[in-house]
């Protein structure tokens, strides 16, 4: 198990209600599970508050970056202490 801090980038910081969170996990897929459990309801509540009726998944619109490298959503990439993990939206803009 590694202790990793996940940065919620840009708008995700607003949708998940926090700039970052720290977890103990063995791989990225485990981090995803914990985020879904802890922040999934926050995400859904935020969308409801904005009037969204359709069911939108956090995971259809975001991706992890492990040490800067984009990962597939179901990645079982192992984690080690000190790894940099970011969760960002899948669309760039501006």
């Amino acid at each position, binding site marked *: 198990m590694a202790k990793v801090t996940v940065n919620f980038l840009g*708008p995700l910081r607003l*949708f998940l209600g926090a700039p970052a969170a720290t977890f103990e996990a063995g791989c990225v897929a485990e981090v995803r599970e914990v985020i879904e459990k802890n922040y999934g309801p926050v995400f859904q509540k935020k969308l409801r508050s904005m009037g969204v009726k359709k069911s*939108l998944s956090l995971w*259809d*619109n975001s*991706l992890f*970056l492990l040490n800067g490298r984009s990962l597939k959503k179901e990645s079982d990439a192992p984690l080690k202490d000190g790894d940099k993990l970011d969760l960002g939206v899948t*669309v*760039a803009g*501006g």
Partner: protein
Amino acid sequence: MNGYQGKLLIADLTTGALTDEPLNEKYARDFLGGTGLAARYLFDLVDEKTDPLGPDNPLILMTGLLNGTSGPSVSRWGGVTKSPYTGHYGDANAGAWFGAELKNAGYDGIILKGQAAKPVFLLIKDGVAELRDAADLWGKDTTQTPEEIKKTCGDKRLQIACIGPASENLVRFGNIMSEHGHSLGRAGLGCVMGSKKIKAIAVRGKIKMPMDDSEKFRQAASKAMTEVKEAFLTQWMHEGGTASWVDSAIAYGDGPTKYYTAPTMPEATTISGATMAETCEIGHTACFGCPIRCRKVLQIKEGKYQYEKVEGPEYESLIALGAMMGLELDMSTAVYLNELCNQYGFDTISSGASAGYAFYLYELGIISEKDTGGLKLTWGNTEAAIELLHLIGKNQGFGAIVAGGTRRMTQRYGRPLGEAVQTKGLEIPMHDPRAYHSMGLVYATAPRGADHNKSDGYQVDGGAGHPDLGLDASDRWGDEKAEMVFKSQNFRALTDSLGICHFAQIPFNMIVDMVNTSTGLNMDMEGLLKAGERIFQLQRALSCKLGISSKDDVLPDLILRPIPDGGQEGHVPDMEKMLPEYYKIRDWNNISGKPSRKRLQSLNMPEIATSIGAK
């Protein structure tokens, strides 16, 4: 022809003659609207000899096909000209309300010709146009100008596109500004207005546009509106705006820092859209008919520059006016810099990048305070940056040199052209091709020069894919990009001409429905994508007509130097692999860079092939 007002206004500023010209229906069918349709008109009116700042260079403003309708986020209108900044084809598009109101005023577009002897502004109300004296407006900024015109005309609901002092001073990257900071902001279209001494265009009207089937259009638009309202991109653009990309740009190494030589500076997070939302946002503004409402309204109570109510800067401006010069900005200063550029009315991307190059040269010791008029351009010197931006707006002293852009600066200081981070004379925007390789190809091949909005490159590379185009999400550092760039460039050439915003995720079948029920054209997806390709190839052919060839489809050396630290991890796009593949797909000649005659004929443009001598 349904879906159009059916006429253009031809304004001869030399003689003062204002005449209506019927819309060329063939052009409208083939190029739809916006920058596509405008480029087709421009093709007939300019050549290599046309002086961009002379009376013979037209400035063409064109509404997007769907402007003014009840479609969602279809406010974007465009302009084209022979660019005084790059010397070849220039275009730009913007949102806000001007395009919709121009349609309501009874026109699909305006062609400005000639040069007025003294400052004027153009007023169009319900199909009636007149030129008015603008002597009292000359010198006013881009907030004062529309306020004065509304007051003079006694009409608060006029929509106004104007220039600021920068374009009056013939700053080559001067903008045309419409309200709330929206701008036709690249390639110097405002400078052409300045050369013609036309300060502003004010429009208003209630002329109904004929639709092929109003009820079916209403139904199609309503469905599309529901889709946009429910899309995740809509939610994040509303909450964070483009400025919220700043944090991601830091992680991905996407935001050019210290003139493209350093990892994206993490300090930029203090001015991100998320920070705005958390600290100083008091509301949003929207373009015509847009449910996204992505523009932020801020109240700045802390810092050196305070505002009761001010437009929030967009991502491009935040990076170009900050990290590019190594500035560690607080929100107050970031807003001030953005306002400064908007009030003078010049391009934040080209000005920020050109100023960044000046800082780079100063740090290298190539230029000194003797050259800069006393400015100490060390990375992070915010006060020097502010002074330099003022000088750019005034086109004075060292500012006049920087206002010429990076390419002219390399010539002036005897530096290699590869230090000028531009393509075809236009500076590369704030999505670094070392962070998204596809953007290298997009920048190298965009008809007007570096243009981040002429594809969905970073969207697909960023993991979103594009199902309607059959494009799966891809890796941001691969170099199998030619097909994706080709398809998404065609798609964006199409949506720009229809007036659809990039942030509106409208399923393609609904776009087809809106086009068909408004115009009666009976198009399908394939037909519309072919129109997109036709528009892109036309704009390319026009670039070639004005002197561009394959030698101009290159990225500058400086942006091909790896930055090992930060989000780029030392990656650089492999242009030698991507470009030949792309040329083959586009059917461009390897030397002349021209589209082939066969390809242009297949796109129903034999006359364009003949005009440029395509083989």
